[in-house]
């Protein structure tokens, strides 16, 4: 009855729900990294999208130049990009912690231009294709839709990583140091914890999450220099809706907005690019701290 009212067959809705969850898991994994970095380091990392793109490109280079397969890249590429990220943090960002947010934002925006410009120069805007790993080719026919194996894998992998990160930060001893560091870094240092090193490692963790998502994205999308720029704006909206710095908020909001976007593509495709920002505006009006944010 409801479906008849909507004028859309139920199969289409289930399919879009699933697709939305898959896309949402990308948003979740990316916004999680952003939330970790903002929550712990107080830096609005605009370069997050560029590092996601770098993760995808490093995977492509590993495959193309060294014949290293997807599965190894899934670990290697985040490590390589995280090392690069930590160097950035040491050299550049660590000098900005005590300044206003806008300095971090501008510095990381500059980094975006540098990183994207470099890849554009090397590979052109069309980028390169990355093959789907052999074991994940094909898919299941679920009756209401054809679900590619690889997309199912992405959903599971991204969610596993998201909840792993959440568990690490909220439920382990090291995680409790991290949270303590955001409350009062000097006190924590007095207890003998090396806070600057912890900050560097935290930034590395956030960057590794971005690069990991990039590797996951490589077989689905064309690996190209602008892929990060396309997605980063949406991810920022996710973080704002979820509440800046809230880990759980980033994960739940990422999934929910992915689904909202999927449904919009059925009912009014022209608005699919804007629906997330409409939701963001509404949330900001009603609850400026975000759905999961604390004042």
């Amino acid at each position, binding site marked *: 009855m409801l479906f008849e009212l909507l004028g859309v067959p139920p199969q289409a809705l289930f399919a879009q729900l699933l*697709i939305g969850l898959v*896309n949402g898991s990308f948003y979740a994994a990316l916004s999680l990294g952003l939330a970790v970095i903002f929550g712990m380091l107080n830096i609005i990392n605009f370069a997050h999208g560029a590092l996601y793109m770098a993760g995808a490109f490093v995977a492509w280079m590993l495959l193309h130049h060294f014949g290293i397969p997807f599965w190894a890249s899934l670990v290697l590429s985040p490590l390589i990009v995280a090392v690069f990220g930590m160097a950035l943090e040491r050299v550049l960002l660590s000098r900005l912690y005590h300044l206003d947010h806008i300095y971090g934002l501008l510095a990381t925006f500059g980094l975006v231009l540098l990183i994207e410009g470099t890849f554009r120069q090397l590979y052109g805007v*069309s980028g*390169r294709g990355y*093959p789907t790993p052999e074991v994940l080719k094909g898919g299941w026919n679920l009756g209401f839709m054809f679900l*590619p194996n690889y997309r199912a894998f992405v959903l599971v992998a991204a969610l596993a990583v998201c909840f792993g990160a959440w568990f690490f930060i909220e439920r382990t001893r090291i995680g409790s140091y991290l949270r303590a560091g955001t409350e009062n870094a000097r006190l924590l240092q007095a207890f003998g914890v090396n806070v600057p090193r912890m900050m560097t490692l935290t930034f590395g963790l956030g960057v590794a999450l971005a690069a990991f998502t990039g590797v996951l994205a490589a077989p689905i999308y064309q690996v190209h220099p602008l892929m990060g720029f396309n997605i980063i704006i949406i991810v920022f909206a996710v973080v704002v809706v979820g509440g800046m710095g809230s880990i759980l908020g980033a994960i739940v909001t990422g999934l929910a907005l992915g689904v909202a976007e999927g449904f919009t593509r059925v009912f009014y495709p*022209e608005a699919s690019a804007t629906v997330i920002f409409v939701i963001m505006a509404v949330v900001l009006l009603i609850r400026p701290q975000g759905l999961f944010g604390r004042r």
Partner: protein
Amino acid sequence: MRLGLVCASALALLLSAGPSVADKSPVKIGVLNDQSGLYADLSGLGSVEAARMAIEDFGGKLFGAPIELVHADHKNRADLASTIAREWFDNSKVDAIADLTASSVALAVQELARERSKFAIHTSGATSRLTGDACSPTGVHWAYDTYALANGTARALVAEGQDTWFFLTADYAFGHSLEKDTGAMVEKMGGKVLGAVRHPLDNQDFSSYLMQAQASKSKMIGLANASSDTLNAIRQAKEFGLVSMGQRLAALLLFITDIHAVGLEAAQELVLTTGFYWDRDEKTRAWSERFNKRRGHMPTMIQAGTYSAILHFLKAVEAAGTKEPKAVMEKMRAMRVDDFFGNGGYLREDGRMVHDMYLVRVKKPGQSKGPWDYFEVIRTIPGDEAFRPMKDGGCKYVKN
């Protein structure tokens, strides 16, 4: 009424014929296109290089002064493009603006150039409106247009029996125009259009749209988009099993740089229409190798077209002995486009350069001898058959 009209035309004639001295000031050409966004590989700095080659091959000088070349990135924004075009025409003494990637930009600059009696040389914007309701007495449309793409690809596929279509359309002037022209061709050939879905420009995920295309149960999915949008749609259509379940894709606008980027594995067997392929004869190979040496990739039809159009324009200005628009346009129409691209093509009154188009099939990985060996020409479509007849365009500057 009648008398008024006669007086007005006499006045207009007087005004336009005002300065009887030929305008022999230095010639300046601008290349305005996307140099950083999704269309940067298929036009971008490659088109700038092609323009530079045209000026060099012409001899570099006209009326005793060097020919100047300027270029700028419009980032696919019609507002930014208009600002740059205005500044070029009004302050920088630019005579002609070439390339003009993205149909939205092309339409905006067409109008600016028309108002100022300057030249708009379209080698990239695809919409067939440029020689239809938006035509201009000083606008030329060189390499291809949405009608020719539809005419080449849709005609061949419907004739094969692929008679039901669903479109994935980029939601701006170009996509709409391509969808409209292709849909009209499908119906004219006796096929049926089952529906269309519009996606934003520079979209990443096509899965939702592909589901809708799948649900339509059409035999063909027409991709009325370009560049990375088309590439992502092709990749994801394979991923979601549309192709293995029997639906076929028609990439209505695909460039050789796109094939290079996506790889033959994903692109094999696609049928498409192009205005140029580098490996067609001696002349195309010779020029393309020169381009490849300078840019590191083979030229697209836009880049080759930019060379051809600018060279022809310069020849016409030289032959006319003035930059006066009417005289130059007359020469451009009178002279055949005798280069590797035009192959004896000619410029029509509505601004369309009529030349042969090619229906090609993308090779399988095993058939290709190496990088850039991507197309097999299955049919040469004679120019007069490829492009929309002038009477159907509705260009108001065409005298019948």
